[in-house]
């Protein structure tokens, strides 16, 4: 079975499509995780059934390593699945998805190890596990209990596959940059490094050395007031997009190490307030 990066993604798309998921594209703004995509955060609220799956490139400025660390990335890829309400057989379906991409649960000793999830900036939390394959964490499996400070009724289940780690396990390799991105026996084989290493180098340099904090502070303020303005005009999706921008700007400032203790706490609180307002507006305006 082929286990190159893009084939695994295609297979996951196929699998979850068969499960009735809407296959979406990544959100076109910088996100820290697939959870932040409105298709998860906002859609997890309210009573309407919803199933969606998508790849989300996720930026963690603090984890950038200039393309030199075999495991850590400024930008990694998550495969995100959201199922509302949570199906009774969701664990079995999830395991089926692993078999579908060529990971045999028995050979790899799949485990569900307690790991409750919480996002202070989103005001969100849930209970679940990290899923291990032969000791490697490959998925975060969470039953949402609360988003934006609101209870999730009904409960959604979120599956977040860490694609790099998962496929490193599948390909049995040690360095992320050695991952086969496409078919290594095809006419133009490309590794993960070929595709992504330059980005890692440059964005690490950007976030650790060349970020102009004063510009970011300004942008953050702008994003915040734009979000508030949009909320007051009841435009929930554009408002939420500015909340996402604020969140990413916070991550950049945090990675740059320019936030004092109070500023940091304060900023998390500010982003959470934006998220809360967007979620409240969503609850008010989505008629289901």
């Amino acid at each position: 079975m082929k286990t190159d990066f893009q084939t695994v993604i295609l297979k996951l798309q196929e699998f979850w499509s068969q499960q009735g998921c809407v296959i979406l594209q990544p959100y076109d703004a910088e996100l820290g995780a697939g959870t932040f995509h409105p298709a998860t955060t906002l859609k997890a609220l309210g009573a309407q059934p919803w199933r969606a799956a998508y790849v989300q490139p996720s930026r963690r400025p603090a984890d950038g390593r200039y393309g030199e660390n075999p495991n850590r990335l400024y930008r990694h890829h998550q495969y995100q699945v959201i199922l509302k309400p949570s199906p009774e057989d969701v664990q079995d379906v999830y395991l089926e998805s692993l078999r579908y991409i060529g990971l045999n649960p028995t050979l790899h000793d799949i485990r569900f190890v307690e790991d409750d999830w919480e996002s202070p900036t989103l005001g969100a939390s849930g209970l679940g596990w990290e899923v291990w394959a032969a000791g490697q964490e490959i998925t975060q499996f969470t039953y949402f209990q609360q988003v934006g400070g609101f209870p999730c009724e009904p409960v959604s289940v979120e599956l977040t596959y860490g694609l790099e780690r998962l496929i490193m396990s599948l390909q049995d390799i040690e360095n992320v940059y050695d991952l086969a991105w496409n078919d290594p026996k095809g006419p133009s084989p490309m590794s993960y490094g070929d595709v992504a290493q330059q980005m890692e180098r440059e964005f690490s340099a950007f976030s650790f050395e060349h970020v102009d904090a004063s510009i970011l502070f300004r942008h953050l303020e702008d994003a915040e007031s734009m979000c508030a303005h949009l909320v007051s005009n009841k435009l929930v999706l554009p408002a939420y997009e500015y909340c996402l921008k604020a969140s990413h700007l916070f991550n950049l400032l945090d990675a740059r190490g320019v936030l004092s203790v109070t500023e940091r706490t304060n900023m998390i609180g500010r982003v959470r307030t934006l998220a809360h307002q967007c979620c409240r507006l969503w609850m008010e305006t989505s008629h289901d």
Partner: protein
Amino acid sequence: MTEWLFEILSEEIPSRMQPAAQAQLKELTEKALQKHGLPYESIRTFVTPRRLTLVVQGLPLKTPDRVEEKKGPKVDASQEAIEGFLKMVGVERKNCEILETSKGHFLNVKINQPGRRTEELLSQVSLSLLEKFRWPKSMYWDTEKVTWVRPIRGLLNIFNGNVVPLSYANLKSSNKTQGHRFLAPTPFAVQSFDEYQKKLRDHYVILDWQERRQLIQDGIRKIAENSKPCDDETLLDEVTGLVEWPVPLKGRVDEHFMNLPLEVITTPMRVHQRYFPFKDAQGQLAPYFGVVANVDSSDHGKTIVRGNERVLRARLADAQFFWEQDQKQPLEHFNIALKTRLFHQSLGSLFDKVERLVKLSTRIAEKGGVNKKLVERAALLSKADLASQMVNEFPELQGIMGRYYAENQKENIEVAQALEEQYWPKVSGGRVPESLPSLILAMADRLDTLVGFFAIDITPTGSKDPFALRRAGLSLIALALNPQVDLSMVEAMGWAYETYPWKELPVPQLKNKEETRADLWTFLLERFKFYLRDVQGSPYDHVDAVLGVAHANPRLFDLSLRVQALDQLMDGEDGQNLLVAYKRASNILKIEGEKDKRTYQGQVKEEALTAAEEKELFKNLSLKSPEIENLVKKGAFVKAVQDLATLRPFVDQFFDKVIVNTDEKNVRINRLHLLAYFRGVLHQIADFSKMEG
């Protein structure tokens, strides 16, 4: 014999919650059966990562018939009241008896309650178990608003092989369960517990937690071959809760990582990966690890071992990188990064804490006559490693990395040691540092934390103690029980308070120094009382007697010695008799004092002593009192109480021969003063009025 089998099959239960859940299920079952009037012979409970199981043997088939009596209103009560009662009990007026009492004639009904079938009752009992069960953390997963630790996926509920009906969380009970998630997932039916346990085994599930634990322990020992697994009960417990079908496997650690410090290798192993480290015959870390899989795999674990080795390699490669990076700058340079680490919103950053620790610990060192330079240096470096990359990745290594980095940059050995030992005792009853710089830094750290939080009125309440202040208190007590730094706690609290730059801190409500000290001292004495009773094992009244003089002697080591000495004194006949004499003296002083509306406390006039026995008592008291005072000052309480004991015959003789209440006023007052003198000598050790006897 009858048998009730109830299994709650769920998604994976967190390992750390399993043993307590097993115990709770048993306890709740005992209570519920009792409440429903169901006797039984035995209750056993079991837990695996996916199931919580209950088996009760020896229940009756039905409960016995009984007659229930219901008393109604008076016979001459209003029609309404009588009709209401009849309706409630469902009986006609003519079937009522009349109950004659002193308060009048009442309607009375006897209703035959036929016994109920156990099966029926078990439906209720099992439902109440699900509803009453409390997990440390639970969740919703369904439109039915019930909670459990993770979603429930099956309810096996049978009594003597018949299904006990139960509906919960959109599930109906049955006689079926499932085995291992991967190895044998097809559901199967059972008739009895024996069959259940056996079939589970056939389906790759070891039901019994202890058995799984033993299998893991033995298996790990076996694969260790020439080496030996490091003892780690906590890890063993945790792993037991992660597998239904334990299969221990052995992996290798790459040789080139073996140069890293021991803890740097074993922490990712144990904490992150739940591997068992091994030691070789020389006690050195061996380049192997034990991992417990949950499956028998067709390739005999090859893929599993390879995968786990790869994960460990990645973790250790990270650790190696941090180890090298962190040492590219001197340890103290990390302090700058502590400015952005919060200690507490109102109490400043960790950098601020370090500055306070430097001041506070040197002050303690000065008092104790300890080398100030070493303590100062240790305090300055105390939190630096918290900003290192290694500790950020592996928080469990706090202090330990500080020590390694300090050693490598050639700090004084005691300074390096203090960086690790400042966190001791790590657990209640754990090791306490011996070296003075370590001890002082550890005390200063706890004092700073406790005083800071008490000053801004954050104190533990009920089950809430988010800053672990109770633990900090117990640690401070353990540290203070050291003769080398026997500080006045109250004074040291004052120093800690003065070290905070309160004017610069954003504190909404600040208690003043006196109030802070008083509250914290009361709090500490509560912990200390617990320590003396439950750890040192001293009787309640001895502890109370000594703590009765704690305000005048706020040194914990000193107080603990007093209690021990008192324990020793009261073990013997002398002590017991001395106490009797003390009580007698106190009583007389109290009664006479009340009678005369004054307290008797004053100089004994030697010339006014008449009887030989009182002269003798006075002579011995005068002789012993300064001696005892001296011994108390030196903390030689055992010797002091031995001295006390020698007073016994003189007191006994005094009470035998001398009458206190004589007509001669001056003689009487003088004798009362003599008794007060005797009492005062005893009070140098403890407040004997709190003693029982």
